[in-house]
């Protein structure tokens, strides 16, 4: 009789599986908000850092330093209480997703900055020599190349954001990990519960990386190896 599993465990598990899978939609939702938001913000900061004047350059560097120097969960809490406070009042989902996007923007900024630098200063000089404005040169010459170069390292950041989306559960957004915890508490089967969660994360990250590899391959320039 000792520690015998409840006889109803297995039908219960199949229901639980669907409960965790519902959390997957939230995980994907959080990532789909955080990643593009971080990309936009990161791209802006990378351009400011690379082509902005002396002071904007400094400010962008400080932005990156601060955001990358603090653990994401700490930033998430601070940003959450700003974004979901008395003045701006977003739901936990939006506040959590946007906060995660802000955290990610600093890392994406560094990825894009590296890509912008990799294009090389010579191209900018050449573009200016044939009469393009700086903005035109960035838009039509540097950025199209830099964005392509950024895809492989960016896919790394994409999988990190996907996995970091589990942090929003601290704000009360019931995504995969939170649901796995509940499943673990109810069934007393932690290995199974977290196993399901791990499997779902793995599939998501795998699919994301393969899709980005494909994108990278499809958009490759003939001039690049």
């Amino acid at each position, binding site marked *: 009789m000792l520690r015998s*599993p409840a006889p109803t465990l297995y039908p219960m598990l199949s229901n639980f599986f669907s409960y965790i899978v519902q959390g997957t939609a939230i995980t994907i939702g959080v990532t789909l908000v955080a990643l593009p938001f971080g990309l936009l913000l990161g791209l802006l900061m990378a351009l400011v850092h690379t082509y902005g004047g002396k002071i904007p350059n400094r400010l962008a560097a400080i932005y990156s330093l601060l955001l990358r120097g603090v653990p994401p969960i700490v930033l998430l809490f601070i940003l959450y*209480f700003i974004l979901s406070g008395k003045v701006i009042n977003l739901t936990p989902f939006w506040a959590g997703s946007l906060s995660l996007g802000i955290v990610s923007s600093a890392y994406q900024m560094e990825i894009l900055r590296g890509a912008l630098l990799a294009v090389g200063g010579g191209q900018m000089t050449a573009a200016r020599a044939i009469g393009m404005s700086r903005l035109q040169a960035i838009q039509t010459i540097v950025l199209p190349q830099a964005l392509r170069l950024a895809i492989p390292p960016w896919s790394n950041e994409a999988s990190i954001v996907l996995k970091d989306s589990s942090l929003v559960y601290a704000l009360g957004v019931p995504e995969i990990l939170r649901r796995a915890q509940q499943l673990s508490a109810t069934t007393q089967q932690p290995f199974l519960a977290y196993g399901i969660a791990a499997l779902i994360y793995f599939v998501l990250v795998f699919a994301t990386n393969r899709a980005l590899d494909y994108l990278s391959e499809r958009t490759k320039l003939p001039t690049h190896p």
Partner: protein
Amino acid sequence: MKRIVVLVSLLVVASILLSACGGSTAANHLEAIKEAGVIKVGTSADYPPFESVDENGNKVGFDVDLMTEIAKRLGVELEWVDMPFDSLIAAVQEGKIDASISAFNYSEERDQTIDFSDAYYTSEDAFTVAEGFAGTITNPEDVAAYKIGVQTGTTQDSWLTDTLVATGKLPEENLFRYDRVDQAMLDLQNGRIEVMMSDFVPAQALVEELGGLTIVYNGVLSSGPMNIVIPNGDAELQQAINDILKQLQEEGFIDELAVKYFAE
């Protein structure tokens, strides 16, 4: 005549302004909750039998049923907000949720930043033995001399493990962990174990139901009184919840819940 017109129009304007103000700012938190028609209550749904999710993801448990009844009597809808236990107090402080019920034990440290309702349940522990038990238990730690049963993962389990097994007083092989308290009570009847440690209320119910058993000790050992967490200084909400808790206690609602959730 002109004066009267001015006076009347002033009154009209004033009354419009006043009613506009009255519509948006409630006198206090309790009024605001009633006006919104919904109370947001935080819980960490990973602590059965107090709060957990069932196979369909619905919240179930002692605290869940209790809070549902409280919201009903406040005349408002109940909206659950699930959070990790550690985030709950911060969320009450920041006003993200109106209150929190999650098997909180009162502590002076916690009382500094938030307020507590009256205790809604004091989980007393009980030692149950079969009738004709020859030993004596005057001191809780005396149970270390016997074969003792407990429900896996409960506060009693932790108490026995921490205070008796870890200190070497109770040999590990004399601690028998069961999935359900009623299974353990049957083994107690059959003499496979000599003492059963469980929550007092369900123990009482089982002793009455099964027969041949008796409770030799009850007292607060493993957990203590449980309270609902409410925002600091929120006297109106505190009073309203306390009044309802008192009614529920008098009606026996809480004891029924204890039997429902802690007896199996």
